[in-house]
């Protein structure tokens, strides 16, 4: 089948990576497009601005991340301690700085900065954007999404009002 029109340009708003899947959120002219990528397959869904019911801006710690990094740091800390005891403090310090320090830094950074989460709920689905470091960008996007949804819904409301049939003129009821 021949293609009728080129799809509109998409702008990447944010990505979200988990253990087995990745998610990308794009802005399209009439809403947000969420791509779930599992192995090598992309599944798309859309949140349309004229169907948005709620937009939230939430800042939370993310306990799974904290627990995982703390457990990893503890485990590798013991390993580094063992290496240090067996091979000298230089080897132990190297193992510590390679394996434990990044996890500790991530743990402290997450505790200090927390994770900013924007969630857009629509009638049928939802989109979520997470920001660890770019707080200003998160705030700007939250405001932009709210503004676009508001504008779109106001436009739709005025279109529907314009389409409405004219009201019946007030007059005497027909006589039987």
């Amino acid at each position, binding site marked *: 089948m021949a293609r009728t029109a*080129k799809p509109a340009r*998409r702008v990447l708003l944010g990505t979200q990576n988990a253990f087995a899947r990745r998610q990308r959120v794009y802005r399209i002219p009439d809403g947000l497009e969420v791509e779930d990528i599992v192995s090598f*397959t992309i599944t798309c869904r859309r949140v349309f601005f004229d169907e948005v019911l709620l937009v*939230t801006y939430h800042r939370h710690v993310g306990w799974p991340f904290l627990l995982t990094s703390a457990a990893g740091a503890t485990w590798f800390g013991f390993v580094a301690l063992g290496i240090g005891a067996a091979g000298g403090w230089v080897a132990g310090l190297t193992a510590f700085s390679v394996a434990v320090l990044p996890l500790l830094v991530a743990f402290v950074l997450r505790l200090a900065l927390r994770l900013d989460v924007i969630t857009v709920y629509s009638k049928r689905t939802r989109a979520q954007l997470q920001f660890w470091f770019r707080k200003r960008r998160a705030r700007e996007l939250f405001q932009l999404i709210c503004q676009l949804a508001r504008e779109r819904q106001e436009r739709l409301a005025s279109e*529907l009002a314009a389409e409405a049939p004219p009201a019946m003129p007030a007059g005497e009821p027909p006589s039987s």
Partner: protein
Amino acid sequence: MTSGRQLCPRCNADFEAVVFRPPQRRSLRVAEVGAAGPGGDTSCAVHKRNAAVANCSRCGIFICSLCKVEADRRVFCPACFERLADEDALDTTRTKYRDWSTLGLAFALLGIPFFFLGVGLGAAAFYCGIKAARQREERGDSVGLVAIYSAIVLGALEIAGGAIFLVSLFR
């Protein structure tokens, strides 16, 4: 829920909420054949009482406004629309795609340790890279060029390296 600051019941932290009340679309008005008088309207192939408003662009049957499905700037009856959507023949209803960019990059990276398979893996990476470039253009993406070019360049290098390796092996 109202707009403004709220208390999250899960984490007991504050969060900001903006509530929207999207306008409700009015229910569809369907014209009946009887309203048009004798010989005035053709009836829908599925709903005999409803007046037809269009023809299906695929099978040609008369369809009423209840049955009319618009997709890819064409009008379909529900049966044709479902069939085309199942076959992934309509651009607007496609929701699953192959991630050619990641696939190309995976083949390209795999070709580094398995350099002796460079011709095959490099060709696969090159092919996936080209497909990814086309997909990026079709979908109108503004990012993702680095992965695509990496797959194409690495693929080409692996093809050349693999070919040199094979030639040197058999000489």
